[in-house]
Each structure stands twice: as C-alpha cells, then as structure tokens.
C-alpha cells in the first residue's frame, strides 16, 4: 500500500511538470485548466502539512487545500499591489514555496512514513498481539 504521505512528492512533481509542460506547449485544453487548478489547490500547501504533525487524514486534506488557497491569494495580491504581476513568476514562486516545504519535510523523513500508523500508542501494542493470537 502506498500511503498518502508517500504520494505527496510524486503529486507535487507530477502536477508541476505537467502544468509547466502544457504551458510551454501553449496548450489551451480543458486538461490544462484542470492541471492549473489542481496545482493551485495542492502544490503550495500540501508539502507543508507536515508542520502540523500527524493529523487525521481529513484534516490534513482540508488544511492542505486551504493553505494552498491562502498562499495563492496572498502571492497574487502581493504581485498586484507591488505592480509586479507576472503569472510565470507566480508559478515559479509557488513551486519554490511548495518545493521548500517538500524538502524540509523530507529532511525530517516525513514523506517516508506510513500514513496513519505513526505514533502507535501503547494500548494498541497490547491489544494487537492478542487479536493476532486469536486468529
């Protein structure tokens, strides 16, 4: 089984490269629209979810998307108010923000861990062998 955490780096890299490639090719398809919004919803925030520790998957998804949207909003507003509007640089900065989160998470070994099995509490360790014996 591949845990959600292990998927994150692949998702980040895949979406970033897919969008960059379609942008470079000048694609105007619905697929590029999907990739663009998937990138905006996932790439800036998901790689930073590790900062909250091992939270429930549902909460992690919620935080990842909301954090991505907040970063997108703040960056796009900053570019407008600083009169530095550039979608290309926006893409580069968002990729850099996500990439930094990914790297820092990797440094802590977060992406290699199994999904929800970390911090296995003591009571389970007591209960599990009994259950396995029973089987």
């Amino acid at each position, binding site marked *: 089984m591949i845990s959600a955490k292990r998927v994150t780096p692949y998702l980040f890299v895949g979406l970033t490269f897919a969008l960059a490639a379609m942008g470079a090719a000048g694609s105007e398809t619905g697929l590029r629209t999907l990739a663009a919004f998937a990138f905006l919803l996932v790439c800036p925030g998901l790689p930073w979810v590790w900062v*909250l520790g091992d939270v429930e998957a549902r909460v992690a998804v919620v935080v990842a998307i909301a954090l991505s949207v907040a970063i997108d909003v703040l960056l796009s507003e900053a570019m407008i108010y600083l009169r530095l509007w550039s979608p290309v640089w926006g893409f580069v900065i968002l990729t850099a923000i996500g990439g930094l989160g990914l790297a820092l998470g990797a440094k802590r070994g977060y992406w290699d861990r199994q999904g929800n099995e970390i911090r296995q509490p003591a009571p389970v360790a007591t209960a599990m062998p009994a259950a396995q014996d029973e089987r």
Partner: protein
Amino acid sequence: MTGVGYDYYRQYAPMREETAEDVYAINQLAGFSSKAANSSMRTLLPETSSPSSETHVSVTSIAFKPKGPMLDRVRSGIRSAPAPVIMLAAVMVALFSNVPGIRPENMTDTGLVSVLPLGWFGQLALLIVSFAIAMHAKDCPPIVRTAHIVCFIVLIHGTPDLVYGTLRYSWAWKHIGVVDYISRTGTVNPSASLYSPYYNWPGFFTLFSLGKSFAGAKSALAFASWAPVYFNLLLLAPLSAFFGSFTKDKRVVSLACWLFYIGSWIGQDYFAPQALNFILYIVVLVLWLRFLDPDLSNIAKSTRRTAMVIMVLLQVAISTSHQLTPVVMTLALTTMVVLRKGRGWRVAASAVAINAAWLASGARTFTARNLKSVADGFGSVTENANSSLSDLAKASSGQLIVAQMGRALSAAMLVLAIVGILRMRKSKSLLVPLALMALPGTLLVASSYGGEIIFRVYLFALPGAAFFAAVALAPREEGRWTLRRSALLAGLSVPLIGAMLFAHYGGDRQYHFTRNEVSGSEWLYSNAPAGSLVIGLTSNLPWAFEHTEQYRYRWLATEDDPVRQQIINDPVQTVNDAIDAKPVAASFVILNRGQQVQVEANGILPVGAAQNVQTKLLSSGRFRIVFQNADVTVMKRESE
C-alpha cells in the same frame, strides 16, 4: 455510551481521549473478534470499571482506524452495504442522461423545476432512498455515505450548467470582467464605483486571474460556470471536519453534511468571493476546534503555534478577499474564546487587527465612501432584514411559490435545529455550535449589505443549524439506526429537497442566459467603442465581462422615480435624456429576454411594459436596430 447522552458529542476526533469502549468498538471494526476486542478493552479498564464507564486512555484515535487503499474501502462498502452501493452506482451511471431532453425555453416562473423530466426526479428519489439505507446499514463505511453526498452535489449543481451551457447570474458575468481587468492590466482600480467592493477586496479575483493565466484560458468563462459544483465539493471535506469536531458519530457527520446541502438553497456558491471565503471560514473554525480548544489536552504546544500561524495566513487571505466573511470570522473566534476560555485569544485578536488594518489600507477607498451609509443602517434590524425580502405583492404567481418555498425550507431547518438543541440542552457541548449558529444573526444589526444580509446570515448560520438538525434526526445511541428512522429520514428529505429545488432553481428563468443572449452581448462589446454608454431596463444580461473600464451603464427600470415611471410613460424621451445627460463616444440600447422576464416576474414594471419600450423606440424613427436575434435587440440612435 449508554447513559452519557449527548455529552459524547464533545469528544474530539483528532488526538482526543478515547474511552475504553471506543477502543473496543474500533478493534471490532478492525476485524478482531469480540473476545480479542474484550481483551484489549480489559487492558484499558481499571478492575472496577463497567463497560459504560467514561474511563479515558490517552491514545490517538487515528492509530486504530482500519484505513486502507481507497479500493479496499470501496470493496468493504460493497460487502457491508450492497444495496446503497448498487443504487448509487445506478444513479451515477445515468447521472446526466436526462439532460439532453430538458428544454429551458419552456421554463415557467417556477424555474428549472418546471421543465425537469420525471427521470431526473426518479434519479433523485433513488439517491434519497439509497442514502437513507446507507444510514441504516450497520457496517456501511462513511465513504459510501460521502459518495451519496458528492452525487447529490453533482446532480443538483451540475444539471443547470449542462442544461443552459452558459454562465448563470448577471452579476457573475461582472466577476468575469474583474478577472479580465486584473489579468490584463496587472492592477486593481479601487475607485471604480461599479466594481468598488471587488477591487477593494481583490483576493478572489487575483487568485482566479492567476488561475486563468495558468490555464491559458482567454476568459474566466472557461471555468466559472461549474463554480457551484467545485465550490460545493471543496466545501465537503471542511464541513465534514467541522461536524466531526462536535461528534464522533460518523452517521451524524454524514447526515449533517446531507442536511447542509439540502438547506443551502440561497445560491451563494456561484463564481463569487463569498463562495471561496465561506470555505476558508469553515477551515478556520476547524483549526480552532481541532487544535486550540481547551478540551484538547494532547496537542503539543508547537503544533498549536503552527495551527495559529496557518489561521493567521487564512485570516489575511479572507480579510483581503471579502467584506463580510472576516466580520463573521472575527465574531466567531471571539465568541469561541469567550465561551471556551480557549488558548486562541491571540488568533481572535489577530482577526480584529488584520480586518481593521485592511479596512484602513487596501479597502480605504470603499471604507471612506461607505462609512456613513453603514453608520446610518446600524441598529435598524427590521429595515435591514426587510430589505432582503422580495415584495411578494408585486411578484408573479410562480415567483410567489418560489419565495414561499425558500422561506418554508429555512423555517423547517430552524425547527429541526431547535429540536436538536433541545435534545442537547443538558450537554456541555451545546454552546459552541449554538453560538456559531446564532451569532451571524447579529449582522442584522449592522447593515442591510445591499439588501442581501438575511441570505448571508442564513448561510453563516447553516452549518450550526445543519448539525443540530442532524442531532434531531439521529438516535440517542450511536449505531442504533433503525429502518424506521431511515424511512423517516427519506420521508423528510423528499419535501425538504422539493422545497430546495423550487427555492434554488426558482429564479432560473431570469438568472440563466441563452446562447443568443450571450451572442448579443459579445456583439456589443466587439462593436461598441471605448467610452460608450450602454442603456437597458435592468442589468439582467451577460454584461461587463470584458474591458470593464471602457463602458458606462444605466439601467432605467431600476433607477428611482421619476425615471422608472417615465420609462413606462415615455420611453423615447427617457432614453434620449439618458443619452444626452453626459457626452459619450456612442450609446447603445440593449434589451434582452432576461430583462423582460425579470421586470415582469419581480413586478418592477407592468407586464408588457418591456416589449412596449422596444416597440416605441423603434416606431419613433429615432432608433435603429444594429443587432438582433431571437432573444436580444441592440439599438442605436439614428443621429449617432
């Protein structure tokens, strides 16, 4: 849990304290035998404890969940609840099969409901029954119930998009224009009076300008019409986490989500800042409830601080993107801190500070212009509330039904919520959701919000109301969901959804635009020179979606008397006066199907008056047609 009533609703899902019973139940779910589960429970219980005791053991609930790949969970769903899975699959396979037969041109004043075929209602009925059975099925995994809600969202909000094929709501077209302006110029224009709120709180528009550029789209129209579908889908996870903060009964969470989407009839989920900001608002509440609530003892200090930083980032995004959401968020956070003596006072203080700072900086143009009108409206609760309600005396009979359905659905949600509140009255967990439901009502004191305040109050109160409504319908003991209760749920869902369909789709005869109407507007913006004046009866047409800064507008039927009266009595002179009021590069009169429907259905002008305006302008010999199709006529004055 027997005997503890609804106090267990206060047991938080993440990192919460688990009772020995929880461990027993979860181990059973994980596939261990009763004996093994009993054994594990014994290891957790003191010698004297009974199975119903509230002995707590510090564990993380997430560690016990039998999570597996999605496919495993789907397989488990099929095994444990085959009937709802098969019924859901049937609905999904034929999801939009009825759409090609729908003829929007035959729509009456009751909206899209009047032309939906029986097969579409059959699908919906099957979905309702299937959801009710999924609630009853003993081991049905939550993902099956979630799939029902997803299907409901796609069916309800996807159908209009496929039927019309164009963007609904004239004001959503204006939002397309703001995205166009920002992505074209790289700036905002806070002093542009028509778009003042958008440019003073531009976050939503700058985000979608970036998205439009990333997507390589020529216009935000490429992704705007499906906004109700994707905004509602995006809301589902935060909403589920929000409800999951008050109860660990996953059926109640699913039911609350189901009821929320049924109750959400007010159409605030289109391509607009409030839709996105409402999602962010719910996430802020989730973060507070999951990381800062004082009942949570096992959250590390560093994690709390991190959650606070994320909340502050979200607050900045919200405060710079929408006028009303930051106010509600500030009220909610302050109330929770006061009620729960939470550690999050810094977050509440930052919400106040960020909002005030933005009002004085980025939104200073709007603040300076509107401070007086906000101050004048402050305290006028009745006037503010009434400004949102349509004048039913003037409305058509179809619109009368639509308005009454909306009111009946809101009242039904309130009644169900009150029953839920009464059932939870002895619970210490009552306060937070009750406060979140009640406090948006205080907005009525502050402002009429352009005549929309009561709808916004309803929207912000709805999550709390949906939770209590779910509590009202759920059994007191978790898992005791009888077939009779499922029948009750299905029986109740039918009239509620029926009212929702009328209330939500009821305005569609005027809110949707035909392809002909879009063609007319596209012709106008392709041919009208910069600096032109566009005149119509109302703004109910696709408008201002490109080059917003180049045109001026006058909507004569929505102006105050005597203009509104004059357009009925002497349309030629009224239009001439409007054109001559200020020098313009050119002037165009545009009359479309949508304007005619709106003025008649809402009683703005007498029936036939809109057609009379067009006839009199043309018969005067002073105006000529420059573009016309079945739904639009664009005219120009002869002398120009």
